[in-house]
């Protein structure tokens, strides 16, 4: 048996697997990794790996490893990693020995990174998944984010593989602004053509308020400040929905979104761009671009 002991933890870091597809019927959204390509890149690096990984946020993760040797892979964004003080490449694959010290620190870009082992994280399966849902406070380690001093046993268990090559994930966009593609949201018609078109007129900015539930945007133009009160009946939410809060703040809803909501949703990010959106740091400028459903699905 082996285990890791957490020594430094970035806020909102969690245990994640592919997600809880069945949770909706109990009022729980699926959760799962914020950056799926990076999450699966760690599987690709290992060849086969545990279905469950640690997701850490911008400030990284440090831990000590104890017990029988294990393989580890890490990926996502551009973080800096040392093992026993020796600089590693990123993403990376390494064999860990008893007593090894892994230190992942913030790098030039990225909000989420993943550490996966060839042995599984010992956490209970709740409603079919080990994924932590911070909003619902279930899954992972008692529904809580990772914290300093946590001892996480690594145990024999299922292994997963992937046949998708994630090596080509672009980290830096050629454009000055990041372009995120959207489809009309549930209430786009109700909000009117003017609101829809105003989405594209100028850039937004990622705000400092961004987590697994949602990414709030700053809007220098304040374009939704006088949006109509629609008195909507609460309805289904999907990841990527862009909802407009009462005072006009747009929020991109992410993996731990509430399953239903009553705020108007003007647009929905295409699935392909959701992971890129998750990795954007505060103050990044973004532009939205309209795309057809057919094209969005061809990108999957």
């Amino acid at each position, binding site marked *: 048996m082996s285990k890791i002991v957490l020594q430094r933890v970035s806020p909102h870091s969690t245990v994640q697997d592919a997600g809880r597809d069945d949770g909706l019927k109990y009022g729980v959204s699926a959760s799962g990794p914020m950056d799926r390509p990076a999450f699966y890149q760690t599987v690709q690096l290992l060849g086969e790996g545990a279905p469950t990984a640690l997701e850490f946020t911008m400030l990284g993760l440090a831990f000590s490893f104890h017990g029988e040797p294990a393989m580890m892979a890490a990926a996502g964004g551009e973080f800096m990693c040392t093992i026993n003080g020796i600089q590693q490449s990123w993403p990376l694959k390494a064999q860990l020995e008893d007593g090894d010290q892994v230190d992942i620190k913030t790098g030039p870009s990225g909000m989420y990174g993943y550490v996966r082992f060839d042995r599984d994280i010992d956490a209970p399966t709740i409603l079919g998944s080990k994924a932590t849902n911070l909003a619902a*406070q279930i899954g992972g380690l008692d529904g809580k984010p990772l914290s300093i001093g946590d001892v996480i046993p690594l145990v024999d268990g299922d292994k997963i593989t992937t046949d998708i090559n994630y090596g080509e994930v672009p980290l830096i966009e050629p454009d000055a602004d990041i372009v995120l593609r959207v489809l009309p949201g*549930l209430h786009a018609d109700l909000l009117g053509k003017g609101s829809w078109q105003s989405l594209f007129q100028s850039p937004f900015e990622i705000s400092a308020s961004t987590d697994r539930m949602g990414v709030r945007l700053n809007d220098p133009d304040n374009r939704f400040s006088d949006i109509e009160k629609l008195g909507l009946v609460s309805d*289904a939410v999907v990841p990527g929905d862009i909802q407009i809060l009462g005072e006009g703040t747009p929020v991109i809803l992410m993996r731990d979104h509430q399953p239903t*909501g009553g705020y108007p949703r003007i647009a929905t990010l295409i699935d392909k761009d959701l992971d890129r959106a998750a990795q954007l740091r505060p103050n990044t400028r973004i532009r939205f671009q309209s795309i057809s459903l057919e094209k969005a699905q061809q990108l*999957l």
Partner: protein
Amino acid sequence: MSESEPHTPPRARIKLQPLGDKAILVVFDTQLRLNANRQAIQFTQLVQEKLAPYIVGANSNLLSCLVRYNPKRTSFSVLRQELQMLLASFDLEKERPQIGTDPKLITVSYGGENGPDFDAVHRDLKLTGQDFIAQHTANVLDVLALGFSPGFVYLGLHENWQHYPRRAQMRENVPPGSVLFAAGQTAITSVPIRTGWSVIGHCHLNNFDLQRDPPVQLCPGDVVQFQSAEADNV
């Protein structure tokens, strides 16, 4: 909105709307009506039974059915066509009776420390506390939907109180078991939440108990009858 007027043929009111690139929402109405809610619940059951090979999951909301799918396995146009065919065989004219038959009795302690908005609510409705409780416990209610937070159920309808507004101020950390009231509905929380609904009382239902399988006791379509905790002592 002409599409929500009662005289519009029901079929014309139904919308199939893509929600992102991995879901279709079948919307039965835009205004809360019991019949549209029951349609959404029963259509969802039909989708689960008949379209299982095409979908990832189907879940009902207050007035809609969310159908999630994997576009790599099922194309949007095929799924839309399947849904349209299913809708064609789904009777939209008939008034649907309550789905559940065996009401779950829920005892509510109205007002007091755990129902801080109770007095404001019955005063706003120009009712004494006792009269409000009498009306609130009078009818067998539908479980309209489950969502928003784990185990959170929407119950209704209180037809006379459909226009009762949400509070201007949000309440933080409203505890599990709280009985909420707004817009002709009563809701029950199972985890702490932040809400703009009025908190009128407390009950002992825990509709999200991971020690149970399934963790929920109330699902959309079930029926509920409230009774006042005070009545026990009479």
